[in-house]
């Protein structure tokens, strides 16, 4: 059993590794057990309902169940497919163009936008009563009232998928950029030298190496898209909704017996996510086969200029949609009265900003504290683990990898209920630290995910030199490796910060209402549909991680302004 290697303790650092695994494994398995127990009704909570083995039957018998399932399934596949294709082809086509830095610079703030904020922005933009039609009405379109068009909440989930795609593009862009330095880009030139088109050269020579490094983030996108709740609530189909929303409905049903139906549905949800992952895995093999065939036959796809322009346009639209959405949030946050078809508010007011100021500061500050501590702790744990892997010359085993990523792969809604019961039993809910602890479960994987590859790609000969000059391992770490890797380290921290800020369910359930953050407030206020408030809170929610993304790219530039070779200009990192 080579997998058991992860439980071997040989040093202090190994001890840390064990701590991390326990930190992740214990809550996750406890939560999963509670979930299964609830679905089969033998756990404490579910004993109350009496024995009933038909929870799964009830789920399947729900009208529209198969439509809900297929919705979740196809959204889970189409989102990563489109987002990944756009990102890969865009980078292939434009990596060496002068405008690339620009796009990368815009991408970072876009990454900071929480999913729900992006979804609201999109809603305000493309809905029949949204900004685009307001702009055209009534002069051009002739509409005095919004057309009865099925643009958002469409039964097939197109607008829903669109929102996910425009939010996942920056994420996949980000992880790809982190992976590029470890990839020999000269391969593209060789392939191009054989007469292949620019995009095709990249796809057959660089993409396979890059993809291996970003495969887990792609899996995380599949899991997220197939089980997301907030975006689905805003833009998703209604009758029937995706399965995740059905679970939420059952969880929120006043009839407490529906709790076990929700648990059964959550297990089915995990199954759907796994099925989507399996389908993707099969797709990988098909694509690999086809690409090999094309390469073997000597297809060169030389004339790809129109295609390049097309992908460039899609990228511009995707980024533009998010940016316009944010601009609309700004407008709505100061809109006193803004009725259709006026393109701009009739009455402007800072009422929400003024009346909510104290609450915004209070809950924003708490969210920032939680996010800062949980991502700082996660970063420390990740660094310790990576350094341990390096010093002991071990690589994470498969089991360790999957353990780290379970929190990203298992739908959050599916196991938060069990996790909150665990915290309750231990009597550690409701404090700032318990919220930090539960955030780490979700922040740690993202920090690990973004930092591991740049870390491992570091040229360790620098460390050899340092040791030859008499530096200890520790000093080499602090004085050589960490400073050189400052940019990716801060980038990983910023991403972790953003992930923590966006946590809703964990904060609500573990915080027990004692730890309101900007995000729990935003969701509660969003339930009232007041757009001025939604705009106000969503903006603050965006601003917090944005500050850290900005710092993450500024600090290395300032710190290394006199160290040209350390400047993160290469690949725009």
């Amino acid at each position, binding site marked *: 059993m080579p997998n058991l290697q992860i439980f071997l303790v040989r040093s202090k650092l190994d001890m840390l590794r064990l701590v991390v695994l326990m930190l992740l494994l214990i809550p996750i398995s406890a939560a999963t057990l509670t979930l299964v127990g609830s679905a089969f009704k033998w756990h404490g909570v579910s004993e109350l309902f009496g024995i009933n083995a038909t929870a799964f039957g009830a789920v399947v018998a729900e009208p529209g169940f198969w439509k809900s399932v297929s919705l979740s399934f196809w959204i889970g596949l189409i989102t990563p497919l489109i987002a990944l294709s756009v990102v890969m082809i865009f980078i292939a086509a434009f990596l060496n163009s002068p405008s690339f830095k620009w796009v990368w610079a815009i991408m970072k703030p876009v990454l900071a936008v929480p999913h729900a904020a992006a979804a609201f922005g999109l809603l305000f933009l493309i809905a029949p009563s949204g900004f685009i039609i307001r702009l055209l009405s009534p002069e051009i379109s002739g509409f005095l009232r919004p057309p009865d068009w099925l643009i958002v909440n469409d039964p097939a989930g197109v607008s829903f998928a669109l929102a996910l795609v425009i939010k996942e593009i920056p994420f996949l862009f980000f992880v790809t950029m982190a992976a590029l330095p470890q990839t020999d880009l000269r391969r593209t030139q060789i392939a191009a030298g054989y007469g292949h088109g620019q995009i095709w050269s990249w796809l057959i020579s660089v993409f396979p190496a890059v993809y291996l490094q970003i495969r887990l983030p792609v899996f995380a996108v599949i899991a997220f898209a197939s089980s997301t709740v907030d975006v689905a609530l805003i833009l998703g189909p209604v009758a029937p909704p995706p399965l995740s929303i059905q679970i939420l409905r059952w969880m929120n049903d006043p009839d407490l017996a529906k709790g076990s139906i929700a648990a059964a549905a959550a297990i089915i949800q995990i199954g759907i996510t796994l099925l989507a992952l399996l389908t993707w895995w099969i797709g990988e093999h098909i694509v690999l086969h086809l690409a090999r065939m094309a390469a073997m036959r000597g297809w060169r796809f030389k004339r790809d200029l129109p295609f390049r322009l097309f992908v460039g346009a899609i990228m511009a639209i995707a980024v533009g949609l998010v940016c316009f959405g944010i601009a609309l949030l700004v407008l709505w946050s100061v809109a006193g009265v803004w009725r259709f078809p006026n393109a701009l508010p009739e009455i402007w007011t800072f009422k929400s900003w003024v009346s909510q100021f104290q609450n915004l500061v209070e809950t924003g500050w708490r969210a920032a504290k939680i996010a800062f501590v949980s991502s700082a702790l996660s970063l420390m744990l990740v660094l310790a683990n990576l350094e341990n892997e390096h010093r002991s010359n071990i690589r994470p085993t498969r089991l360790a990898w999957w353990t780290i990523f379970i929190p990203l792969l298992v739908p959050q809604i599916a196991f938060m209920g069990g996790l909150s019961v665990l915290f309750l039993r231990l009597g550690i809910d409701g404090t700032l630290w318990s919220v930090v602890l539960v955030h780490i479960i979700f922040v740690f994987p993202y920090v690990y995910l973004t930092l591991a590859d740049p870390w491992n790609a570091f040229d360790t000969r620098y460390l050899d030199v340092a040791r030859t000059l008499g530096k200890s391992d520790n000093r080499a770490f602090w004085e050589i490796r960490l400073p050189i890797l400052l940019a990716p380290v801060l980038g990983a921290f910023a991403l972790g910060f953003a992930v923590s800020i966006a946590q809703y369910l964990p904060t609500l359930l573990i915080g027990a209402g004692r730890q309101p953050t900007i995000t729990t407030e935003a969701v509660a206020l969003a339930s009232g*549909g007041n757009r001025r408030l939604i705009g106000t809170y969503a903006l603050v929610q965006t601003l917090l991680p944005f500050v850290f993304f900005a710092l993450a790219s500024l600090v290395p530039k300032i710190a290394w302004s006199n160290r040209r070779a350390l400047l993160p200009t290469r690949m725009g990192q």
Partner: protein
Amino acid sequence: MPVLKKLHILFAAAMLAVTPVMADEPDPKNWDQLLEEAKGQEVFWHAWGGSENINAYIAWVGDEVNSRYGVTLTQVKISETANVVARVLAEQSAGRDEGGAVDLVWVNGENFAAMKRQGLLMSYPWSTDLPNYQLTDFENKAVLSMDFTESVDGLESPWGTAQLTFYYDSANPSFVGNSPPTSLDDLADWIEKNPGRFTYAAPPNFIGTTFLKQVLYGLVDDIAVLRQPADQETFDEVTAPLWAWLDRVQPDLWRSGRVYAADTTNLKTLLSDNEIDIAMTFNPGEASSAVIEGLLPETTRSFVMDYGSIGNAHFVAIPFNANAKAAAMVVANFLMSPEAQARKSDEAIWGDPTVLAIDKLNVEQLSFFDSLAPGEATLSAEEFGAILSEPDASWSDALDAEWARRYGAGN
């Protein structure tokens, strides 16, 4: 071991001395002592946090109970009351019998019934013993003692009343010169003549289910059957006219009936955006409030169905393991005070109708209500017509399930 034994006895004596106080639940009949006990306690009130107005009102309540009774009130803003019920349930199953996270919760009938059945509420009657309860109109308003067909039994304290009300813009061309459709036939005709301009919230959302019940009330021959539990045999026969009515209007609904509104606030937003022409709400003052806020035009008006409309009340309840029961009762009592009730009725503040009997109030108490002038969008008391009480609770589930089968499966 005599020393140990002595210690043991001492310890037991100490326990005995402490236990009666610990076990003694706060008693609203002994109000002065309860006030004393409440002083310095902190109440975590879990209440829907989706409305700026309501949050501001609750903050005002917090300031008042703090300066008057020394009680600290914190609103835990939630988006779903069921989350709170689940929270208390989790605490119950984890054995946390005191020091719970929830001190006071704003409940609707369904959640109250669930909490009552599950033993999640403070187990003895208390609300009827609150001093201000005597000012409420419990003699005439049945909705104050029967919450969603579940007997209140003093386990929750009334806070406001509600009645299903429709509202619209009277300056809208489709209404100019016509009275709004106040019968089901007229409403169906209106929907057919104005395709894409009417919708309701998808059940099991509360207002959506209520709309189904409202339509059902208007179509059954004998409403007595709705007071009985629904059973499969009569259900199809009784509800056949309801589905026929919904089938008739379905193709002419907003988005051709492929999308429904999410909830009350979504309906208001749709009306404000001019996506639909008629919205519905449980708060009769909502239209006027929205006019004051600038969400809806001054020409907004309300109407109710001519055969009566479904009405109910909303309440606050205290969980069995609340940490600050005495202070929670102080807050509940303050919520029923004439001053707090009058402020809540003010459409510039919230516009939620009072639970008090105006004729029980003395001059000073009445003065709080004197300055209130309901907006033109609010119906007068006479215009509200009959209140239809909720059908037996079993009808909700049955109607929701059948609706989902017919319209919610995306066929």
